[in-house]
């Protein structure tokens, strides 16, 4: 039993990280139709800011995370103000390439601003385990899982039940019609970029204790989050979250029972095969194009 439960709990932890990053990607995709390839590197940048504040200014972790939230929001505002909202005429590919350019800017800027030494970011709750039916889960793991699940649920609640959520959904379904209806779509887009930044930062802070904080530490998260969106489908907000947890579980079990080196790679190949049969993802609707 514990041979199934233990890796399952472990994967829920990474799944939460992927889910947060994927939520950022899908919110940006739905509101401004930009494939957000820089989600990982923006998360990396603000996550590195958290580690820097912690290691060099000596602030406690929760205050450092608050600083990280401010940095992430500022970055999201900056990107939308300076670049994205001036791109109304650019093609979809142009916008995609812009986010690729952003990756390079953030990866180049992080070592210049925060120094080239790799840093460590401690766990929120340093020690302590719970025994659950023969499997162990650390308190920090419980915290990570619940942060991921609660944020996802909170976001779904806001999207479905509040006026702001309605504005976001309206913008997502048609930017132009939403503007005609008096929805401040610019503000919605601005907010979604800031929100994506904060979600990326949280993902970075959650994954950081298991790795060292270097400019590339979010690369796996970025790939996994993109694939979570592909697997879950780009048409709903909850699809990518389901996709993220599925990816984490599948990767963990393949690593454990098939190959510790090639498990993750095998999982991506399986997703590709799956997409051959369900091109729009798990919860995708058929994509129609008007002439």
């Amino acid at each position, binding site marked *: 039993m514990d041979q199934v439960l233990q890796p399952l709990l472990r994967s829920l932890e990474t799944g939460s990280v992927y889910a947060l990053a994927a939520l950022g990607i899908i919110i940006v995709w739905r509101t401004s139709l930009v494939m957000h390839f820089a989600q990982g590197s923006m998360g990396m940048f603000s996550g590195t800011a958290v580690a820097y504040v912690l290691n060099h200014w000596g602030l406690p972790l929760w205050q450092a995370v608050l600083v990280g939230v401010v940095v992430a929001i500022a970055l999201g505002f900056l990107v939308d103000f300076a670049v994205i909202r001036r791109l109304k005429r650019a093609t979809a590919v142009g916008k995609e390439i812009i986010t690729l*350019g952003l990756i390079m800017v953030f990866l*180049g800027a992080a070592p210049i601003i925060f120094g080239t030494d790799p840093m460590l970011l401690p766990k929120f709750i340093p020690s302590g385990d719970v025994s659950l039916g023969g499997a162990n889960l650390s308190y920090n793991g419980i915290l990570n899982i619940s942060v991921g699940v609660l944020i996802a649920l909170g976001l779904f609640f806001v999207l479905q039940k509040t006026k702001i959520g309605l504005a976001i959904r309206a913008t997502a379904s048609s930017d132009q019609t939403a503007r005609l209806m008096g929805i401040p779509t610019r503000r919605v887009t601005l907010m979604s970029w800031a929100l994506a930044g904060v979600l990326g930062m949280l993902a970075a802070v959650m994954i950081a204790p298991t790795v060292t904080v270097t400019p590339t530490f979010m690369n796996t998260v970025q790939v996994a989050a*993109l694939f979570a969106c592909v697997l879950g489908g780009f048409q709903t907000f909850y699809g990518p979250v389901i996709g993220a947890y599925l990816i984490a579980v599948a990767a963990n079990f393949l690593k454990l029972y098939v190959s510790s080196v*090639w498990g993750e790679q095998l999982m991506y190949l399986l997703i590709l095969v799956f997409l051959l049969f369900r091109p729009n993802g798990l919860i995708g609707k058929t994509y129609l194009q008007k002439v």
Partner: protein
Amino acid sequence: MTTATPARTAAPTKGLASRLLHNAHAQFLVFGLLLCLLPSLGSALGLKASTLQTLGFVLIYSIAALGLNLLLGYSGLVSLGTSGFMGLGAYLAAYLQDDLGLGFWCGVLAAVVIPTVVGLLVGVVSLRIRGIYLAIVTLCVSEILLKTFEQLEWFTKGTAGKQSHYPSLFGFQTGRASMFVVCAVALVLVMMLTHNTVHGQLGRALHAMRSSEVAARAMGVNILKYKLFAFALATAYAGLAGALYLFFLKSSYPSTWNLFLSLNVIAMVVVGGLRSIFGTVAGAFIIFAVPELVLKKLPVIGDVSGLPYIFSGILIILVIMFFPQGMKGVADLVRRPFQRRPASGKGAPA
């Protein structure tokens, strides 16, 4: 790739010299000839060996960028797997030439064919779905290939790096200068092939696809086939560029073939200008050579390690925001005041 339009529509009364000047193939040949003279001229003029090396890499990256330009410029698709396919080409070339002793040509052939086959498989899966997926899937393929380069020790020597040596061609042992010439010749051939591709029947289909996919499909253009073709050509060029990279540098490390290289190649295409052949070479020069030759020599900021990334990243963003046509757009902007009269042969039957 629009450079040939004047040649086609030029009035027949014009002199041979001006016609040659406007002929795209003649332009490529002159450009290649100048490049081939560079090593010998350079040593006479005191060109540093390291500068020659940098320029050689510009030629190699230009080849990869030309393939991506075809893909991005005509099908509007982005591949993030360029570095992975280049790396695959490099390791295949090294394996066939040095480990199996099959020589230069077999190495290059394998470096072109095998990545193309892998690319076709990837393309068949991802292009059937939606264009946007190609970027994600190639990103993933690139990560898988990178992992393979690190793990598959019998093939790549892992992180220790694969060592190779200059190949012998037609019984002639090459060195750095002659490898530079080989790269220049390869680049000119690739430029000609690209030019012919986009001006043939294939090119018309690609053009139709670019202006409206739905309309092109209605006219009987098989979109999937041509997108797949553009992607296959891009991977073939990347494989060739990888093989040349290996023979030029004589070694290959897994860390070379990371995401940045792919992003840099995209930057070369964007900065150089979509669908412009000479622009792509200029873009490769700006993105690769300018940081190497100029930025690193600057007094204070020259030592900063992340500077080339920021340079390419900001250039990409600025170019897309203000000069969607890249270097070609900038060149037209500069040229416009001197070209008052409209193109004369525009209405003439071709």
